[in-house]
């Protein structure tokens, strides 16, 4: 495969940010099909349009997901990318690696693919970009036999779950995000690899309401860490922030002079519930008013820590705009302890998941995300299905229309009435 002239792409070798073009050229020295990636992309830059055909169903035997078919629409000019399928590898929870593992993956991909990857795809998979159909089975064999790795999800299935780094290197992890993510990933291998749902379904796990994996915006099933007792306060550290000994927000604002730290302006007045005040130089919190937004903990991480009664809030039904508009996940289970039972399973979480799936697989339409199903059928019905007691926490405000779907058994005397008897009392 020859090198192509790429005057437009060459412009993207300039500038201080790492250049994917330079990187592709480097890889092309070993994997000449990368010259054809560059060549086809240059053509797209000239034509202002993609040169990949629509879809293409490929995979490995027994799986319905994990490989995404991709074919060039100009294969004669760029034979190196005529077939250029994507392989999704399920990443280890929170994306820690050692070099031995990554070198094995690099060697595998040098043998069977283009050498190009995404670290990582939007859902969290380690994405290998560009291989041919005949390479898929041998790649999968080596992947499972030699690397002890597996494919992730694609299509109408459980997509590869992902989590924040949580307790591995963060003081705010209110539950073990990695353990929950890994355990559920193993529990639901069948649902990840064999599509049986109306549409995609995503799990994301964040250890605190800062939500570093965007669970509330991007996942059908979002587990977000929280606590229900009192914020732990180290009053000496509070004084340290006031005196300027410690930098506010862990030093996040060091590049600009914002003046001396002002606990009233920067913490108390920015608290959304106004539940904090100073008594002399002692910080007071009315924890019963706190909504656990994280702002005060973010600003004073040495002084404030989540309470000790930790667990998670489960929110359901987030998605990007296609089709009915973007949705955030709706708060569904206010608090759950995220604990394993004696069988090593997160049974309480599993029960919630499977109640959702049982309902959605029955009533969900083709290509309808569960958030859209809830929107179409109604949150009251969903809460009934989930056997969750409705609470004011489920809503921002009560409905402003009176159109309640009363059930017959809720109304005295039921709905059966005799219009003849009615007319004896009330003439037409």
């Amino acid at each position, binding site marked *: 495969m020859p090198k192509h002239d790429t005057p437009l792409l060459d412009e993207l070798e300039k500038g201080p940010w790492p250049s994917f073009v330079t990187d592709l050229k480097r890889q092309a020295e070993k994997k000449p099909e990368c010259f054809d990636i560059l060549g086809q992309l240059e053509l797209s830059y000239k034509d202002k349009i993609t040169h990949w055909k*629509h879809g293409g169903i490929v995979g490995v035997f027994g799986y319905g997901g994990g490989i995404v078919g991709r074919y060039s629409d100009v294969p004669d000019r760029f034979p190196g990318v005529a077939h250029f399928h994507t392989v999704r590898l399920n990443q280890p929870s929170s994306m820690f690696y050692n*070099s031995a593992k990554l070198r094995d993956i*690099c060697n595998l991909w040098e043998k069977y693919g283009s050498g190009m990857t995404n670290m990582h795809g939007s859902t969290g998979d380690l994405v290998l970009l560009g291989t041919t159909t005949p390479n898929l089975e041998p790649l999968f*064999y080596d992947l499972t036999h030699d690397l002890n790795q597996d494919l992730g999800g694609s299509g109408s299935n459980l997509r590869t779950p992902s989590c924040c780094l949580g307790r*591995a290197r963060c003081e705010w992890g209110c539950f073990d995000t990695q353990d929950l993510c890994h355990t559920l990933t193993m529990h639901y*291998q069948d649902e990840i690899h064999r599509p049986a749902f109306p549409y995609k379904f995503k799990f994301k796990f964040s250890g605190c309401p800062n939500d570093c994996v*965007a669970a509330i915006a991007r996942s059908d099933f979002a587990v977000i860490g929280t606590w229900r007792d009192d914020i732990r306060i180290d009053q000496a550290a509070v004084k340290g922030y006031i005196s300027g000994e410690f*930098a506010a927000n862990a030093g996040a604002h060091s590049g600009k002079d914002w003046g001396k730290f002002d606990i009233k302006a920067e913490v108390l007045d920015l608290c959304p519930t106004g539940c904090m005040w100073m008594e002399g130089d002692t910080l007071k919190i009315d924890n019963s008013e706190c909504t656990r937004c994280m702002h005060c903990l973010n600003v004073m991480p040495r002084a404030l820590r989540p309470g000790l009664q930790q667990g998670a809030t489960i929110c359901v039904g987030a998605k990007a705009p296609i089709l009915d508009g973007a949705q955030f996940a709706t708060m569904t289970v206010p608090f759950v302890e995220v604990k394993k039972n004696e069988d090593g399973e997160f049974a309480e979480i599993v029960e919630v998941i499977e109640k959702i799936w049982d309902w959605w697989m029955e009533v969900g339409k083709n290509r309808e995300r569960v958030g859209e199903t809830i929107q179409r059928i109604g949150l009251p019905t969903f809460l009934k299905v989930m056997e969750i007691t409705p609470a004011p926490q489920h809503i921002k405000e009560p409905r402003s229309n009176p159109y309640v779907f009363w059930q017959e058994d809720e109304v005295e005397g039921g709905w059966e009435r005799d219009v003849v008897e009615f007319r004896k009392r009330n003439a037409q």
Partner: protein
Amino acid sequence: MGYDPANPMADRITDIGPPHYEQFFPPVVKKNYGKWLYHEILQPGVLMHKGESGDECYTVRVGAARLISIEHIREVCDIADKHCDGYMRWTTRNNIEFMVDNKAKVQPLLDDLKSRGNKFPVGGTGASVSNCVHTQGWVHCHTPATDASGVVKAVMDELFDYFTSHKLPAQVRVALACCLNMCGAVHASDIAILGVHRKPPMIDHDAITGLCELPLAISACPLGAVKPATAKNSKGEDVKSVKVNADRCMFCGNCYTMCPAMPLADPDGDGIAILVGGKVSNSRSMPMFSKLVIPFLPNTPPRWPETVAAVKNILETYAKDARKYERVGEWAARIGWEKFFEKTGIPFTIKSIDDYRLAYDTWRTTTQFKFTSHIK
């Protein structure tokens, strides 16, 4: 042994899942798991996490392209082997993190990274523009309305100084999705760059009958603009096909996703919309959606100067005007969107007024507003 094409199912292994995460933890992480006390950002891109044990974990965060080669990954491994006992991780925003257990190991690591040209920029922490997450674009996707890697490279080159510093009022999350499917989910980003189409689908009457399930193509349209129809193919034969009511089309591309015979990408029709003010975190205010402020900018490869300028203008107007801690969406909500448009100089157009489902939620139903230059 190895794969035997004559017997593909022989000793097959399936459903083993990912390797267990714990084997990839550096010793300091493993030892202090769940026992971290607090953290500090020592300088842009360098974090220190303190354990209850007194241990310290130093993390150096570097930016990376999302599209990277195995040669680059091998170089990352070399760095990890040399400085970090072979351990490293990736963040959800495509940054790479190198961790060491001693402050004395930080500077040699930084020096090494700096010696490798522009491959490993240190930053992306605190009140910065962190790495711009994005989708595939023209390099590997079949439905994009713009490229991804190239636009992001051009934007990050221009915002580079904000990646390596802490001078913004708060963190600013920039994200790009190359079409409305938003596999990159840019609907809750401070500044979102979104590929959009503006021409209704064409219909390939030669291919549609064999290629598509027509009822699925018809029901794919959220506005009922796709109807069954008999059409003539290029041989003059009557074929079962569809027709599109162009006046109803909202250019979402969902029909093309369901039916390859309805392509809508186009060099002049496609381009970029800019949305701002989204956030994911629950900190202070609730999570917010990104809102459309610039309906269209043209695709101008290789460096998309209009898009780069638009993003920079919004970022710098915000940086000048917002209060400490205020995210872009919180700032816009406080000053009011009329002031947002006035201060940024972005022309307000009718296209920012919602007329899709749930639109009423965004209309102003109060007499409270500010008299900006928009009121003549």
